[in-house]
């Protein structure tokens, strides 16, 4: 009797069959998606799809050098899902969002508001929350056509850029968190118009990242340069390896310092109704290039360099605050959050006036720079020993 039931159970298992299975060969693997605004309230969705046939396996593993590994399909619709169904009609395989690592938004789409698009990306079970967002100058669709020399696709190149942390790296989930924060301001990295990055010469000379797009609520309100972005990254405690090059005062030559460990804290103060904020920066670094004659093994000489680095960081912060606080009046460094955490009551009373308070917040900085290591050598290497300033 037991055996009979077992057979029944087994058969019923097979009855289910594999009806909902999807073989890899039935999928169009989307590697990147671009969203643009079109006329008549329509949007254009462009997806970069991987072509498995082009990647011949067995012969060295990589492509056969012939065709492109990816291709772009696009379609227009009232919203993303509508556009997606139009794209699907052009594709013989089912669109598969699970490996889409990059979303590009055209400048125009970003300016008119991304709320609807973000809702699709978050609500639909396919797209991933960990995918990176970019705003492109001009049409996002052209961004998908950026030629890459090293990577297999634009998507992979942009993903690698994000993990290098040269500019900001914002994922879908970061975007939502920033939008939900007290300041309701969002920063998304911005890339160059794809049509300007087509020939190898253009790719080799131009940088893809051209700063950061700044959003208030869900609408893009401005664009900040890479230099302002660096200052913003200091304020947001996102600085990673990138050399700081300074000219120490009263000394000939320049020195480059690579910060190895940095910590930035925002310390808000409300005193007599006056809102102020202290940016505390603790950073350590190594000397990577020394074009001066100073022997940095001498603590006195080293302190000259440290002071110069401190001034430089201060200048960067002040410079970008000038743009963000006074110019665009957008709180992407989330000062609001810092005030909320420290002064919850005052915040509750004043949060409606934050837009007025923010430009008036007095920001001071307290920067502590320690250069720990002079690099592999102590005295400047390229000059005779007698020329080195030791004292």
């Amino acid at each position, binding site marked *: 009797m037991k055996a009979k039931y077992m057979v029944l159970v087994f058969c019923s298992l097979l009855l289910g069959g*594999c009806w909902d299975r999807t073989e890899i060969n039935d*999928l169009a*693997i989307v590697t990147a998606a671009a969203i643009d605004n079109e006329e008549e309230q329509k949007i254009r969705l462009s997806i970069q799809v991987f072509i498995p046939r082009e990647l011949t396996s*067995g012969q060295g593993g990589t492509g056969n050098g012939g065709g492109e590994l990816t291709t772009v399909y696009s379609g227009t619709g009232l919203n993303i899902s509508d556009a997606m169904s139009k794209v699907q009609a052009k594709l013989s395989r089912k669109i598969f969002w*699970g490996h889409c690592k990059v979303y590009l938004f055209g400048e125009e789409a970003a300016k008119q508001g991304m709320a609807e698009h973000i809702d699709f990306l978050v609500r639909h079970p396919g797209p991933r929350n960990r995918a990176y967002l970019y705003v492109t100058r001009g049409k996002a669709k052209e961004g998908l056509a950026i030629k890459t020399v090293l990577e297999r696709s634009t998507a992979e190149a942009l993903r690698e850029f994000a993990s290098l942390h040269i500019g900001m790296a914002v994922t879908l989930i970061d975007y939502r968190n920033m939008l939900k924060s007290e300041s309701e301001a969002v920063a998304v990295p911005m890339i160059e118009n794809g049509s300007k990055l087509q020939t190898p010469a253009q790719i080799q000379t131009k940088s893809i990242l051209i700063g950061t797009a700044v959003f208030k609520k869900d609408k893009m309100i401005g664009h900040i340069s890479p230099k302002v972005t660096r200052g913003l990254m200091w304020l947001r405690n996102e600085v990673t390896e990138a050399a700081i090059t300074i000219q120490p005062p009263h000394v000939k030559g320049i020195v480059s310092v690579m910060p190895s460990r940095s910590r930035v804290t925002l310390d808000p103060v409300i005193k007599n109704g006056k809102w102020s904020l202290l940016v505390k920066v603790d950073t350590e670094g190594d000397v990577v290039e020394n074009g001066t004659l100073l022997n940095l093994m001498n603590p006195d000489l080293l302190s000259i360099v440290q002071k110069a680095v401190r001034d430089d960081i201060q200048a960067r912060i002040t410079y970008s605050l000038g743009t963000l606080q006074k110019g665009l009046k957008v709180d992407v460094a989330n000062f609001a959050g810092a005030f909320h955490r420290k002064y919850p009551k005052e915040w509750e009373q004043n949060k409606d006036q934050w837009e007025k308070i923010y430009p008036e917040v007095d920001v001071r900085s307290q920067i502590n720079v320690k250069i720990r290591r002079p690099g592999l050598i102590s005295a400047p290497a390229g000059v005779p020993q007698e020329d080195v300033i030791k004292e």
Partner: protein
Amino acid sequence: MNRNARKWWRMNKQKLQQQQQMPESSTQIAKELAANEAVLRELYTNCTDVVYRSFLIGGSTKALVIYIDGLSNTEELDRSVLSSLMNGKISKETHARKLVEKTISVSKWREITTLEECIESISNGCPVLLIDQQEAALSFGLEKWEKRAIEEPVAEGVVRGPREGFTESLNVNTSLLRRLIKSPALKMELMQIGGYTKTKVILAYIDGIVDPTLVTELKARLNRIDIDGVLESGYIEELIEDHPSSPFPQILSTERPDVACGNLLEGRVVILVDGTPFILIAPTTLIALLQSSEDYYQRSFASTAIRLLRYVFTVMSFLLPSLYVALITFHHEMVPTSLLISMASSREAVPFPALVEALIMEITFEALREAGVRLPKQVGAAVSIVGALVIGQAAVQAGLVSAPMVIVVAITGIASFMIPHYIAGIAIRLLRFPMMFLAGTLGLLGIMLGIIATVVHLCTIRSVGVPYLTPFAPMKGKELKDALVRAPWWMLNTRPRLTGESNMYRQAQGLKPDPSKGGDTS
């Protein structure tokens, strides 16, 4: 179904017993030699290998020696029995016992009184001496037949450890055990199983360590067996195990005397069967099936590392193909992008669904493995070449299967060979197929269901009363020292509780070597 079998058994029982032509066990040896000879000749009709040698003891009393050609040491029989008895100088003494005391110089002998014992002796290779006017016969322990030499076990190789393996002859096997455990506490109880084969079965255990109820239980189970023949210990294993419907072996079999002795010392019972080098060890646990004797001979660090590796690969041999099928059929988003892209490109030309592809490859692999075992050694190389070409390159190039699938099957194959006990490997290899079906129909959910069902099953079964997953379920923290890891010998103070409880400590405490403990010559 069972009812019919029982009915058939009842109807045929008498017939079967008649076929065996056995005299009643109470048939005494008759006084008349001629009568006895007639009975025996009747029983051994058409048995040309039985030798009857009649002679006169001291020139007067009629006597008869019966033995089977090729099973007895005839030289010794001629010299010690026949020549000394036929020598005229001997007195008229014909009483069996006195003869042995005075004239027959054979060390191993036995007095028998029934014809049944007589036949048993003869078929075991012990020549039987029947004397006229005597109701007792003599059986001499002069068995001698061709034996295979002691060789290195083929199925259980080790790098470090004894190279002796059991052989087909029971007395060699018992001697191998006795040579390792010299204490008289090592008991060996003889039984006979098999209507025709009359196979000798020995139940060995160490008195004082073993749980007496375990011995009683196993004896009862062995006595229950009523079968015409036992040609290998596998017969007995299947007839005494706890859960016949489970794919997992519940009795460990080995051909290594050191494994047998290690288990005896942990309070388990060893069953030796005549005619096979594979002995049985009961009770056993899943973890014991995943351990090799070498684990105890290597240093504990090496053993622990190898054990962990083995557990990982055991799980892999169970799950890898099904995981691959599930990921590639249902859960594409769980594969890293570049890997998925590579897999997609290699699967582009494959016409089958992943499940079918996996089944083709796994079944082909199993077939190749079986063919490799069964074939003569000279052809084996050809099989491996064909296998490597068919499974490896040609199948991929022909577009039948994808390259990642070949890798998965290859790793699974290697993983299944990492399991030291072949029978356990088979169980896991078999379960892989239902798991693949589950993965192909329900994806990771199906795999989880399969794992749950397997674990529940493993928790349910017992081996002669000992839970199969000991020491994990029931959890015995102290015994994990010899399960997940292999602690150094100076930490393995206690025997496994469920089998060695009556004699818990196997060594003195504090054996950890240390300079302060002295021992140096100064």
